[in-house]
């Protein structure tokens, strides 16, 4: 209880709640936990359905259309099927770790939603270090993935897990640096305040930051072209090769929960969150989340996968310098033009982004070639 009190910070954000909100923050706590759980489960199902149908259309096929009207019950059918499946633990695997891995992976993914504002002030806790909390908690999921890779006693799993750790550690840095730009502009770490600061969506003020964040986040949640840890054509299914039944379902859930969280974070940081004209704020939030998700699976449908050394090189040689430069330029702009004209800054920033991307793309070698053996 004390933890909750401290995390609320001085003054708390409860004052921002609607005046007729029933009860104190315990009620608030309970209601939002339920809301978040329902939101996550429903949205994950919706995402699975959208991705499968959308990918189908992008790939000139229909996608699942048998279960329920237009196949809308397909995720439900999938869930039932996967829950009924036999749970297999490899004979020489580490049983406890094998069992624990999906839980360890799932909990942090869920915890991210604690600080996502669905609309103004409507969030579980408006931490004043909200974005920092997200960065910290999202890395924990990697531990679960690595546990899975280790406990399976399978070479494919281990390869996948090793790749994941290397990748996540590398991409944390550009990720945080690109967030720093946003934080500088917004002047707050609180998610709700970042949204409130976005009279102009930060995607316009921080185009390069958005680009870096989007790529780094894709790598964080292992989406194409950085889906190396479960690269189907190479290492079968990566870390969850040996998982089945409910545990596999949890990993599946983790994957989509992370994507959902990513979409929500991008919406909050760069797309002005719940803000928008005419429609209710929550709807705006949802629309933007779905739009980001569409972009993610649209990318997935089109482009091939990078190689592990190329992925690492991309992080260190491309994203990291660019993120540093972005942070530097943002700092300069804040110092030079504290009350600067947003439209001027937008044009300048887009120009800077184009120049930097063009420069950088011809600048470095991506990954190594053949190794003499």
């Amino acid at each position: 209880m004390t933890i909750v009190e401290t995390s609320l910070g001085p003054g708390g954000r409860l004052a921002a709640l609607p005046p007729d909100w029933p009860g104190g923050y315990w009620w608030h706590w309970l209601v939002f936990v339920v809301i978040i759980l329902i939101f996550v489960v429903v949205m994950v199902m919706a995402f699975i359905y959208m991705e499968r149908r959308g990918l189908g259309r992008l790939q000139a096929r229909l996608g699942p259309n048998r279960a329920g009207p237009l196949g809308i019950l397909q995720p439900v059918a999938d869930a039932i099927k996967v829950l009924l499946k036999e749970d297999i633990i490899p004979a020489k695997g580490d049983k406890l770790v094998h069992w624990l891995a999906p839980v360890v992976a799932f909990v942090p993914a869920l915890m991210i939603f604690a600080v996502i504002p669905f609309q103004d002030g409507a969030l579980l806790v408006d931490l004043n270090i909200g974005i920092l909390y997200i960065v910290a908690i999202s890395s924990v999921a990697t531990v679960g993935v690595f546990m899975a890779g280790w406990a399976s006693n399978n070479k494919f799993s281990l390869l996948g897990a090793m790749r994941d750790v290397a990748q996540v550690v590398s991409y944390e840095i550009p990720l945080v640096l690109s967030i720093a730009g946003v934080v500088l502009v917004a002047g707050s770490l609180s998610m709700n305040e970042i949204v409130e600061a976005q009279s102009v969506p930060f995607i316009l003020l921080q185009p390069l930051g958005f680009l870096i964040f989007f790529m780094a986040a894709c790598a964080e949640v292992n989406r194409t072209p950085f889906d190396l840890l479960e690269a189907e054509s190479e290492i079968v299914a990566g870390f969850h090769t040996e998982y089945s039944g409910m545990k596999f379902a949890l990993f599946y859930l983790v994957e989509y929960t992370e994507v959902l969280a990513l979409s929500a974070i991008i919406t909050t940081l760069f797309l002005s969150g719940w803000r928008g004209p005419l429609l209710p704020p929550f709807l705006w939030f949802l629309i933007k989340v779905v739009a980001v998700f569409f972009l993610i699976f649209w990318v997935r449908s089109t482009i091939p996968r990078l190689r592990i050394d190329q992925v690492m090189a991309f992080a260190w040689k491309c994203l990291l310098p660019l993120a540093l430069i972005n942070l530097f330029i943002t700092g300069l702009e804040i110092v030079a033009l504290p009350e600067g004209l947003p439209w001027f800054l937008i044009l300048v920033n887009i120009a800077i982004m184009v120049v930097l991307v063009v420069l950088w793309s011809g600048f470095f070698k991506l990954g190594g070639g053949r190794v003499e053996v």
Partner: protein
Amino acid sequence: MKFERYGIGIAKGMAVTFRHLFRKPVTTQYPEERLTVSRRTRGNELIWDKERCSGCTTCAQSCPQGTIEIVTSGNGAVTAPCSQACPAGVNIPRYARFIADGKPAEAVAVIREKIPFPSVCGHVCVHPCEAKCQRAQLDEAIDIRVLKRFATEHDTGLWKVNSKVAPATGKRVAIIGSGPAGLTAAYYLAKLGHSVTVFEALPEPGGMMRVGIPDYRLSKDILRAEIEEIKDVGVEIKTNTRVDSIDRLLEQGYNAIFLAIGAHQGIRMGIEGEDSPGVMECVSFLRDVSLGREVKVGSRVAVIGGGNAAIDSARTALRLGAKEVTILYRRTQVEMPANPEEVEAALAEGVKIYFLAAPSRIISQDGELQLECIRMQLGAIDASGRRRPEPIKGSEFTMSFDNVIAAIGQRPEIPDKFGLPIGRGNTIQADPDTLATDREGIFAGGDVVTGPASVIEAIADGRQVAISIDKYLGGEGIIEETLAPPEAGATPLKKTREGWRPQISTLSLSQRLSSFAEVELGLSEEMAVKEAKRCLKCDLAYGVDKFEVDIGYCIFCGLCVEACPRNALFMGYDYERARYRRGELVMAKEDLLLSDEKQPSGYARPKVEAALPQQTLLLDRAEYLDKVKKRWDLRLPFGL
């Protein structure tokens, strides 16, 4: 490696996938509306048709996996389906082989073993054999009648070598009527040594062949030549001699009498005004035309009826100078008893056919006939298997003609003094096997017993009567003879020859209508040989005792199906079946689970065997129906 084009390549690719978001997806839909056009089979079930298999083992030889096991017995001497269908039992495959070998004279000898009128049959036979031809399952039936005609046209008289006439027995037989039945009986009885006298009421012998079949189908010379051959074995024909009483014949010393007087009396329509001048009856009309008597028809002629006689009357009327000939039939084209080929020819010559119309009254007015008709509709199916026409009340209409020819049927005209029991349709009742009547020594056959039928049935009756009479007269009743030389080296068919039946050349329309010249021109030698080679040699089939396919080893390559010369093997149309069933959802999952044949793995195989024959026919049938449709693509009058 560098990002050479700053991500433009990725952007282009994403544009392509984005475009597909708005396109119709294609890959996952099974094309339900499309059926394969391939004539070849496919699927994973092999079906063997016992009826068609001749036991030639070609399939077993061609199977790469050796899955087909076939055990046969006998050396191949069965009666082919066509021979079975022939009332006279002509050995058709055998003479087809002779024709294929370029020996038409031997072929005629084979035909002569069963019928004394090969030329007549070659021209006008209704060929029930072709309906049973196994080749029709493959593509089209063999044109057996035309082959027979070709053989007779190229005859050298070889059959006479083996034709023997038995020594005289001293018995006398009187045959009343010189139609196909009478003359056939006369021919065989004379060959058995009896003294035969044929009495013919008309001035020329031949019966219906002479006076019922118009010249454009069968010329007089051909018939005359055939009758000469019969006379040559010692048959005496007395023309212009009408027999009114059989008792007087018996008094004259005839030991046996065969009544083969045919059905020469037209049935009356039974409507008002039937006796008006200008109304004719088709039998007498055709008879008068055939015998060269003067018959006058106006420019507009109506023919009532849908049989062959109606078509003959209509075409004859055209040749006599009628400008417009209309056939009125009370049913539809499907029920029409006339030969489809004849109907086609009539239509080609410009005859109009009105279906579902029946006359109800004839009014003679100002020298022309007002034919009052009523429209019909088809009701329930009657005893003949056809739908009974029923008049539609108030649908009367009137058409005017110069002549009306009634051709609604014929019946025998039996003099009262015969003293024989008369059956349905004014026919004489006779024992169906021996054709003997109730009176001793009196036999009857042909149309007078069966009602109006075909030449070949009359010939069959004639043969039967010859056997019966000979037995009655103390003989053994053996009329079988071997005229053709033995066949050397006939082997079952191993490979099907491609090809459809030939297009028989006919006279041009203008030539047809200006005279009674024969319309059909017959085959060239090359065409005949080619056509005869299409024969599947069903008579050489082996008895198949065992036919087994080890489906476990079968790879469904279809080589056996392709090799089979008689189309006795099919592959199950699995894809097609799926297509047909998709809409109906016949095989629900529950049905599968309830099936008796539970498999070890827990799911059951559906029972599909029962549905297979129908399924395998589906493609063939669709094709067949299409063909029939083209053939019957008639303009329906009255807006039907």
